[in-house]
């Protein structure tokens, strides 16, 4: 199931009747992006965070992912984890403040999930948010797309 599909305006506008109840709940999830290429999908004040498809393509084959320890508090902008490819190490920063409630342990044994499924199975951590207004400063899908395109043009 693609998070992106269910947050796109097109899907919401034209397919609501076909959406099953569970999926409908997901459709309410809000997905936002940072300029630094993290994504966050928020549902019931819990933000699932990862890096975008654009970011994984830029990094290349991910060989190691450092995931955070659940139970810790994190401030917006603090380091949540890191991804390592042959080419580079990239820090992942939390786009929101809150408590880390879950980390994606599958990434320990299968770091390649970041490449194969960056915005679904390759999620990094879930954060119980303190301040939902923090989402307002982030990019929506369209703004993020524009941001990536302008980065490519440079």
């Amino acid at each position, binding site marked *: 199931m693609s998070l992106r599909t269910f947050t796109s305006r097109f899907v919401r506008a034209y397919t609501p009747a076909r959406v099953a109840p569970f999926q409908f709940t997901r459709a309410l999830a809000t997905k936002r992006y940072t*300029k*630094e*290429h993290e994504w966050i999908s928020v549902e019931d004040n819990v933000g699932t965070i990862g*890096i975008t498809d654009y*970011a994984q393509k*830029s*990094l*290349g*084959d991910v*060989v*190691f992912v*450092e995931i955070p320890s659940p139970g810790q508090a994190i401030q917006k902008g603090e*380091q949540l984890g*890191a991804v*390592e*490819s*042959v*080419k*580079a*190490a*990239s*820090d992942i920063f939390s786009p929101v403040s809150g408590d880390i409630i879950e980390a994606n342990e599958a990434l320990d044994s299968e770091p390649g999930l970041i490449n194969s499924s960056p915005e679904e199975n390759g999620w990094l951590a879930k954060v119980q948010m303190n301040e939902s207004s923090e989402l307002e400063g982030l990019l929506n899908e369209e703004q993020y797309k524009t*941001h990536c395109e*302008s*980065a*490519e043009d*440079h």
Partner: protein
Amino acid sequence: MLAANLFKKQAVQCMARRTFASASDNIKKTALHDFHLKNGGKMVPFAGYAMPVQYSNMGVLASHLHTREKASIFDVSHMLQTRLIGKDRAKFFETLVVADLHNLPVGSGTLSLFTNENGGIIDDTIIMQQADSLYVVSNAACADKDLAHIQKHLKVFQDKGGDVDLKIIDDHSLVAIQGPSAAAALESLIGEDLKDFAFMNGRFITIRGVHCHVARSGYTGEDGFELSIPTPDVVNITELLLSHPDVELAGLGARDSLRLEAGLCLYGNDLDDTTTPIEGGLTWTIPKSRRETGGFLGAEHILPQIKGGVSRRRVGLFVQGAPAREGAEILSPEGEVIGKITSGVPSPCLKRNIAMGYVKSGYHKNKTPLKVRVRNRVQEAEVTKMPFVPARYHK
């Protein structure tokens, strides 16, 4: 030998500031710039040049493995090519580098080091003995300081009546082809067997009518060649090499992981002007004759270290957990900081993390268990011999 490490930060910059790929006004381009773009080169600033970090048809990992399995072409035209002429050229240059140039046969080359008065390394360089000159290739990022250094000493030498001069070779581009298929690719263009052409030798070869200098050398640990090609013909010759079915293009990304697996130093990371050849594990570059007579800058600091020892040494490390990159602290088993990582990468061939760094003497022996700190986590490491991946030079 490549200096600086801008490209390694490329992805980080991309994620943080997205400033990396902009070709600003004063950035230099090699003669292959348009060729790179046409072939999907992802250009990044490196040592003042726009250089491909990788190409769109292959990631860094695949490109690395392709080079070890078949062959890859690297544009290394950003490197500084110079020539020393005049009958006193060897005498002059021996005052600046640790090599024995009087006893280097024509057609042979050597890795050498420019040293400073304190015994530090100004740059590493390849010097080839030619019939009428010394052909010298040094790092792009060190080009300005190398030239200033040579010219300063050149003037003094000339003023004393020495017969020597320095020519910058700016009408030739430099292209490397590296990997087990490199010889076959070059042989197919020249219709000539290169079996008797051994590693670290150079010769002039006419490639499809173009007079080139070819050195059997490289920066990957593989067999290969570095071709100095008249710039008007470089695109054509590169395309001809690329037309061989085994050959792909490779960028700075693969070049860095390849050289690190081969245990080769990156100037600016693993060597700098505060590091002596002995600390850097490059004592072997100082031949016996130069150990006896000295005569190069800083010899009075460097030579006693061969017997007397040094306080720190460059080592290779295997690292568990996250890759330890440049700047990561190295700790003793007891937790004392004993050095720093200068280069590190997840090795594509070994599927484990490899690194180079400097440790306090005493901790440098093979298999010494150490620790490294990566993002505030302490991980296990172990000293190991280099190269990490055995070299396959053509002897």
